[in-house]
């Protein structure tokens, strides 16, 4: 039960924020609005799964916003080249995984601290895509690109279902497989992990590769919502995702974090903007409120942590 404290606190926070729309314009709790909210936040959640794995492994990846844009652009180019959509999807995931693995190699093999390695790849990828596209969008995509050619009413539940399945599978794997536990072990202590027969370098590489592939998946879930691709997307996505994961209780020092926490973090941070729109709050306050909530969440955690240390 001890481990669930942060989750309970988040549920409470979500409940409080969730009550606010009752004092605003009606309509927040209409199914359509909730569905929109969910669909809009799917990319953050999917990237958040990868970020949780990376942070549990005591690393960090700030290149995902750029990677997200690169994957989106590549998916568009592949679709335009006439590849069938399943192949486009696969290629996008693979591209993400390869670039993620490059990050992983820099960290695990070349021993570049993760924050620096991914700061560099963030700059490289973002500038590369500006160089390659000149900022132009990718247009005239085949009709089958948007929603994978499905009618929107069918596609949206499918997307939600796919993300839910991915989330559940990842949560299960992180908890119930030896491979999942190895991220926790390596995040706690490389030497101790080595002693139980793990290869920390490989585990870190795997974490970044998964992160990359999931950044690709997030890009797919995002860009296939449209008939065109904005090549400059995903600016600031990394901070949004890291904030959600950290608010969800993962420790940046590694070894601690759950996907349930990440889900709750995504929900809390994801709903704030919409809730305040329904309350007709001036959007100029958006950033300040977001910052205050992040701080409140981590500070409350310390209060919990302190009580824990004392008992």
């Amino acid at each position, binding site marked *: 039960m*001890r481990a669930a404290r942060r989750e309970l606190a988040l549920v409470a926070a979500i409940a409080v924020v969730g009550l606010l729309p009752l004092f605003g314009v009606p309509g927040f709790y209409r199914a359509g609005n909730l569905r929109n909210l969910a669909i809009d936040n799917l990319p953050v959640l999917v990237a958040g799964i990868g970020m949780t794995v990376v942070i549990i492994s005591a690393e960090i990846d700030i290149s995902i916003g750029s990677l997200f844009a690169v994957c989106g652009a590549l998916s568009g180019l592949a679709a335009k080249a006439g590849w069938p959509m399943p192949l486009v999807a696969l290629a996008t995931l693979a591209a993400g995984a390869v670039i993620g693995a490059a990050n992983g190699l820099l960290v695990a093999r070349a021993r570049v601290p993760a924050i620096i390695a991914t700061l560099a790849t963030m700059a490289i990828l973002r500038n590369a895509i500006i160089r390659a596209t000149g900022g132009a969008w990718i247009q005239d995509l085949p009709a089958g690109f948007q929603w994978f050619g499905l009618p929107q009413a069918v596609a949206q539940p499918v997307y939600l279902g796919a993300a839910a399945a991915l989330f559940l599978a990842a949560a299960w794997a992180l908890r*119930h*497989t030896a491979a999942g536990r190895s991220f926790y072990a390596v995040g706690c*202590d490389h030497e101790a992990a*080595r*002693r139980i027969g793990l290869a920390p370098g490989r585990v870190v590489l795997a974490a970044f590769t998964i992160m990359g592939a999931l950044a690709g998946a997030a890009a797919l879930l995002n860009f296939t919502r449209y008939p065109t691709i904005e090549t400059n997307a995903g600016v600031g996505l990394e901070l949004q995702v890291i904030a959600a994961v950290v608010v969800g209780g993962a420790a940046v020092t*590694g070894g601690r974090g759950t996907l349930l926490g990440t889900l709750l973090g995504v929900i809390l941070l994801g709903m704030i903007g919409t809730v305040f729109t329904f309350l007709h709050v001036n959007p100029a306050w958006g950033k300040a409120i977001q910052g205050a909530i992040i701080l409140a969440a981590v500070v409350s955690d310390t209060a919990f942590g302190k009580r824990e240390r004392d008992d």
Partner: protein
Amino acid sequence: MPPPLLELRAGSRTYPGARALREVDFDLRPGEVHALLGENGAGKSTLIRLLTGMERSDAGGSLLVDGAVVAEPTPRLMNAMGIAAVYQNPTLFDELSVMENLCIGEGGPLVSWRKRRAEARSRLARVGVELDLDRPVRHLRMAEKQAIEIARALGQRARALILDEPTASLAQNEAGRLLDLVESLRAAGTGILYISHRLEEVMRIADRFTVLRDGVRVGTHARGSVDRAGLLRMMAGRDLAELFPKEKVPIGEVALETRGLGCESGGVSGVSLTVRRGEILGIGGLVGSGRTELARILFGLTPADSGEIRIGGKPVAIRSVGDAMARGLAYVPEDRKAHGVIAELPVWENVTLAALRRLCGNWPDEPREEALAAGLAAELGVRAPSLHAATSTLSGGNQQKVALARWIATGPSVLILDEPTQGIDVGAKAEIHRLMGALARRGLAIILISSELAELLALADRIAVMRRGRLAGILPAAEAGREELLRLALGEERS
């Protein structure tokens, strides 16, 4: 005769620029306790790394299990063959639960938490410890962590168990229980490789002794064919006394006095004691009995919330380390790596770090500092390539001397030493004992916290014993016997 359970033939290991091990033969038979002895840096850790598959021998060496050569040893493979190891510093996963730590890295690709819970419970029962299975281990005490590590190793149905300094951080009674456990494992046919600096223990349980020196095997002897002095000689390569009893020096006025001192969060209460100039006050007791916590209160790390501290007869408030230092207190902590020295700093900076503000104010004067550091390094016999070398390049014993030098540099009147000789080799231990004598002669009041009774008995003038956060009693060392000290430490449960 059956082949040995585990055997290393002509094991060598060269690190960049250093040969840690040269053609060492070693074997472990089922049902024996084989002690591995040697000073720090003699190659014991390297030998263990070879035996557990963490590293491989250079060409020419081979590792055998049950007489068969293991071509490509890895930790996982050796584990699967029943070779388990418990390391000196618990290598647990701090954020993970007790349950997970007990079973980590075992089983197939899937994890069944129900099975793990049952398994964890039975493993803990086997070492006789009760712990909350869901608690993250970062909240546990050292002894509890050690117990988990041993329980994990045992649980893997190990046929060969490697114990590297398992009692270093355990107090006497806990150590005794561990030795009982080792004996029962031996009786059950497990082969045990036992490493310890405590010769006493080793003499008690080992069937054979192998001594390493400078990466070379000096010899292997059966029980009874060698005595304590002989082992010491083999380890050091020369005759060495183990302990340097304190010489008689005149005892002066009271330097520090506590009255009913306590701190709730540290679990210490009602401690009243005095220590005089020129005196060494030993503090014994079990690990977790409040010895280190008492030191932390005195040094302002966890300020007291009851009672008072008097220095030179006047009550003083010690709310922070700064207060304690201003009153002439100095504390050489137990955990050398995390607290004693800052390993990455050069030797001279480590030595002057605590005295810096007092010595130079806001603007350091490097030549003066270097002179101070050089003087202390010479006085303490610190062996270092240079004063500008990183402290991490020094051996454990020399690092401990640097930690001591740092506090001597502040010119303290009361020096608190917490397990100052834990895990350091015999030579350095003797030097530190000699130094304590010299400091007492200079008129310092010394508080010596130690888990090693022999050390307390040889060095202290009086011995205070802690039990469950309280002072169980204070005895003059001359009158105190082991029995008496143990009785105080354990309370009613007589051993």
